[in-house]
Each structure stands twice: as C-alpha cells, then as structure tokens.
C-alpha cells in the first residue's frame, strides 16, 4: 500500500513510538510569540532546562501589539511587559527575535512562509491554532499548547497521537468572485466546525492546484475551523517558485537537492485515507457567516437557515440571538459598521490586491470604519511598492501597521459591543473581536464590496 503525503512527512519525523500511546515527533521549525510562550520559559527555568536548538525557533511579536504608532513604546502595560519578556527570553536563550519595527516582523503565519522558513516536508509547530497555514507548502504544521511549547524548546520534539487522514477533493473551475476564503468557508459549512476533529486533511484537485500559494495558505489556515489539526497541499512548481530566493530557503546545490526531494512529497496513487470527501467547484458561491462559529455559513445570496436538528437548538438560538439575526432572513443589504481586512487568514499581499481591485475608483461608505492591517512589514512594503496604498487612500481608506489586531482584539483594535463587522478573519466566536462584537466572516472581495456600500454586498454586483 502506498503512503499519503501526510504519512511520508509524519513517519520520517518519528523518533520513537510508545505502545498504546503517542509518537515522539521531531520538530523542524518552531515559531513563538509573546502570548503563549512566557509560561513555557518559566517552566524551563523552574526545571533548569536550556533551549536545545535555538536556531530552530523563531520569535515575533504580533498578538497584542498596537497597529498604529509602532515606533512609540507600547502603551498597554501588560502588553508591553509580555513583549519585553519575550525579547528577554530570546536574548537569554539565543533565539532570533523579530520585534516591532524589525524588517521581518509580522504575524507569525505570514512571516514564516514569506521568509522561506516554511518549507515542504518539514514539521512545524507554534502555540497558535492557525499554524495549520504552513501546510500549504506540504509541511505538517499544527498548533500546540504552552506545555508543548516548553517541550519543543527543551527537547525539539513533542508527543502526539498520529491523527487519522482525510482527503478533500474539489475539481472543476471556480465561479467569478469565489476566492480561496469562500472555498474554505464552504467546506467548513458542509463539514461543521467539528467535522474534521481527529483528522489531518489533504486538499487535492483542480481548485487547489490552480490556487496561488497565498490562496493555499488561506485554505490550510482555516483547517482548524472544522476541527482538523492541520491541512496540507502537495508541493508543486508554484511552491518551489514561491520559495526560490527567499532568505531562509536553501541556496545553490542545496536548492537543487531540496527540489529533488520535495518532488516526492505527494500521496501515492494507491494510498488510502480514513475519509474521502469531494465537492464540485461550480457549486461554490461567495460565502458569509451568520452565526458564532465558522460552520454557520451560507452562500451570500441565500437566507439564514432554520434550525435543522444538527446540534442543540439552544446553542443555535443563542448564536442567532447574539448576532440579532433571525431564521429565514436575508443577509444581503444589511447595514454594517466595520470592515476588517487582515489576519493570518487574509492579511497577505494577494488579499490587499484583491481588496484594492474592487474598491479602485470608488469611495468608502460614510458609515464604515475600515481597519486594514497588513500581515507583515514586508506585506506593508509591497502594498506601497505596488501602488496599492495610493488606491486605498484615494478611496478614503487608511492603512495600519502589521499585527493580529482585531482578529482576536487583544490590543486596542476592538469592535464595539453590538456593532457588525465584515471581517476577513477566521473566527466569528462571541466576543472574539471585542466584547459584544458581531463578526461576519467573508473574503476580501466581500469585505471590499461591503466597505463601498456600507451594507453586506455581493461583490458580483459591484464588479
């Protein structure tokens, strides 16, 4: 029997297997940030342990940092202390730290790929569930807890039960204005927010083959939103082109031999998955969420569904009550208050290109507060270099500085209670974007269309 892509990468990283227990898995790359690492370093200190391989860990500040005036000291005392603590811990243990203003700074899942740290065939972890993003390169990448961060710092490995394998295949061609975000939200709406729990997903088929690397990252990023530990896509020519010449990518003869081995990273034709699911590309429309988990999503032109016995009625009702929506209502045309473009899901250059393509020559609606937050300083630089900033400014938008920002609202970027935000992020949980905030997840195109009209708007009506 052949091996799946997932098996190939996983099996080559197993140091040891424990009977009726987990595998000891070697970790190639480890990302840390200010929020989930401090207690791990406290643990190292109390056990008198050192960081085993400091050059395999990379640190950034992103989760609770401000997105304006980053050249000034961080005002929030606790945030400042957390970032300072990370800086000190990194200095003490010899770990590269890319703090605010450092040219490599940005959201952890944006900077890994854009600097070539993320590569095919690697195992990559971070104390953040959206680590699944890096699977777009054919790596096994998943989020871990702080105890596991301590394991990776001290022993460069973690203990994990090997998950089951699922393949999601989508063939055909996507309709106009249907983006990778819509594809991912569509899948989650079909599988539910727990439909892939216990699985690692491989995405295959025409749709993912023809996606850009940025698009593949968006899809893999959202794997966790259906419960999967991670998602991955077999590397191909596009992957290699993306990585060629990046700061941490292999160089010269090492590059050639890397490509040679990366070419084997695909599921063998006779390999077997625990679960296979397939969809048709032409069934997918621009998507939007109406509830308080990413599985509560519908095509933008459709009505909010009636409760249908899957799950508990009280959870469904509580969700709609929180959003102040009703069963059977149409979402299109509803007035909104905020638009947020950014996050590890949709904060890459392609997302800003997509947003700019739609708003070009139009004006932001008066009733909309728009927060546009690039995923990294490199993304910010590209926005300027490509003339996108000018388009944004001419249409009445402003650009902020990089960070996770209103995706999880740890910093000052909080959507006020009761307000509606069309957001390109990953979670519409209660209070996620601020206490009482109401989040509607959508693609950068839907966000752009809605920012122009001030209402939930189908981008196909604007283009």
């Amino acid at each position, binding site marked *: 029997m052949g091996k799946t892509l997932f098996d190939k990468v996983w099996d080559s*990283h197993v*140091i*040891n297997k*424990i009977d*009726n*227990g*987990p595998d*000891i898995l*070697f970790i190639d790359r480890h990302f840390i940030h200010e*929020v989930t690492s*401090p*207690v791990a370093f*406290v643990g190292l200190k109390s*056990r008198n*342990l050192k960081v085993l*391989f400091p050059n395999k860990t990379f640190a950034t500040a992103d*989760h*609770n940092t401000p997105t304006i005036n980053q050249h000034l000291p961080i005002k*929030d005392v*606790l*945030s400042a202390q*957390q970032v300072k*603590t990370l800086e000190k811990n990194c200095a003490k243990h010899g770990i590269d730290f890319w703090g605010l203003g450092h040219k490599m700074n940005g959201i952890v899942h944006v900077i890994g790929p854009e600097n070539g740290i993320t590569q095919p065939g690697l195992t990559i972890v971070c104390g*953040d*569930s959206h680590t699944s993003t890096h699977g777009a390169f054919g790596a096994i990448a998943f989020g*871990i*807890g*702080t*105890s*596991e961060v*301590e*394991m990776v710092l*001290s*022993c*460069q490995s*973690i*203990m994990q*039960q090997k998950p089951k394998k699922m393949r999601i295949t989508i063939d055909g061609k996507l309709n106009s204005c249907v983006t990778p975000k819509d594809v991912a939200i569509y899948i989650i709406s079909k599988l539910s*927010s*727990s439909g892939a*729990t*216990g699985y690692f997903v491989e995405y295959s088929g025409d749709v993912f083959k023809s996606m850009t690397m940025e698009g593949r990252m968006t899809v893999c990023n959202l794997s966790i939103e259906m*419960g999967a*530990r991670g998602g991955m896509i077999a590397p191909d020519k596009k992957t290699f082109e993306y990585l060629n010449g990046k700061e941490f990518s292999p160089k010269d003869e090492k590059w050639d031999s890397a490509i040679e081995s990366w070419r084997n990273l695909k599921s063998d034709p006779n390999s077997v998955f625990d679960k296979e699911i397939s969809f048709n590309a032409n069934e997918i429309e621009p998507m939007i969420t109406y509830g308080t*988990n990413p599985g509560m999503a519908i095509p933008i032109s459709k009505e909010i569904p009636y409760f249908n016995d899957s*799950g*508990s009625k*009280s*959870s469904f009702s*509580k969700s709609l009550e929180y959003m102040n929506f009703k069963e059977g209502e149409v979402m299109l045309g509803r007035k909104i208050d905020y638009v947020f473009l950014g996050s590890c899901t949709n904060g890459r250059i392609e997302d800003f290109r997509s947003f700019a393509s739609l708003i070009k020559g139009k004006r932001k609606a008066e009733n909309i507060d728009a927060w546009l937050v690039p995923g990294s300083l490199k993304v910010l630089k590209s926005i300027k270099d490509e003339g996108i900033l000018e388009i944004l400014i001419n249409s009445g938008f402003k650009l902020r500085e990089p960070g996770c920002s209103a995706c*999880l*609202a*740890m910093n000052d970027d909080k959507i006020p209670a009761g307000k509606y935000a069309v957001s390109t992020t990953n*979670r519409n*949980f*209660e*209070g*996620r974007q601020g*206490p*009482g905030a109401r989040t509607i997840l959508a693609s950068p195109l839907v966000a752009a269309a809605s920012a122009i009209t001030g209402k939930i708007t189908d981008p196909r009506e604007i283009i």
Partner: protein
Amino acid sequence: MAYDKFNIINSSAIPLNMDNVDTDQIIPARYLKAIERKGFGDNLFRDWRYDSNNEMIKDFSFNNKNYSGKILVAGKNFGCGSSREHAVWAIYDYGFRAVVSSFFADIFKNNCLNIGVLPVQISESFLSELFNEIEKDNDSLFEINLPNQSISIMSNGQSESFNISNYKKENMINGFDDIDYLVDRKEDIITFANKISR
C-alpha cells in the same frame, strides 16, 4: 513530577449544556496578557459570568450557587478554536479536575492531559443522563475512576467507561508529564536530529 496525581474523584458537577464552546469563551483573549500561570480562574467564562457592567449574569450555571464541584459537564465539541492552554489553566484554577463531554476538540484535549485535567469523553446518551441527574439533584455525586476508566452516577449506579491511552493514564496517575519523559530521552533526540540534519 509536574502536576497533582489523579486517581479517583468523587464530586458533584457544574453543568454547561451548550455545544461548540470555544476557548475564546472559556477565557477571552484580553485576559491572556500574563507572563506567569496565575489567577486565570477569575476570568473563566468571564463574558458569560459577567455583563458589560461587571454585574453577575444570574442565569449562567456558574453563578447558580446550587451548583458546585470539581467536575465540569459540557456539551459536545468542547474547547474548539484557539490553542490557548490558558483555557485549561483557567478551568484548573477555578477548581475543576475533570471535564466531561461527548466530544472534545483535539488541542484542548491534549492541553488538558498535559496539565493534569482529565478529559472524560462519553456517549451522547450518557451525557444527557448526567445533565438530567444534575438538574434533578444539584448535589448529585459522580465518581470518576481513572484506574478503571469509568464514570458513574452514584445515586443510581449507572456507569460508562472512557478511553485514555495507557501512557497518558500512567502519567496522570503518577503526576508525570511529557516533558519529564522527553528530557530523559534527550540523547535519542539529538542523535535523530544529527541523522536528519535539517
């Protein structure tokens, strides 16, 4: 030696009969700014326990004085979303030693096992029994027996078994954790690292 040993607990339970409870509800992101593992219990389910004026929300089960105990009984897909271990720290700090549900999110479950909170996964039907029992009698006692891998309703003797790997079970019973285990095998890890030299 990393955390308290877990053997058998006998306790009443607090119910949270809701599906898809995510870790942003268990502990909102704005309470994740600490640099030490201290005091997270105060903010457990913060926005469900208190309203925007910091007034207690009366009909939330945690604010009902009739409910207490070391066991949290929750609806399916508990702990989905963010990987924040702070969620489990908050649950532990509040006083819980076990969480019972018909389905757990993966990362949350790992985090529980890594700090010594026992995730007990049971059938949907037995979960309904537990909710019914708590509703009938707030003080009803439940026994979670880790060596036997069973959970029982003491009043009527109904019981169900649950799964846990031998490795994790031994760890919980002895209060060991994965870091202890890995540190003891550091030489193997270094040998492996040299072999693959990435």
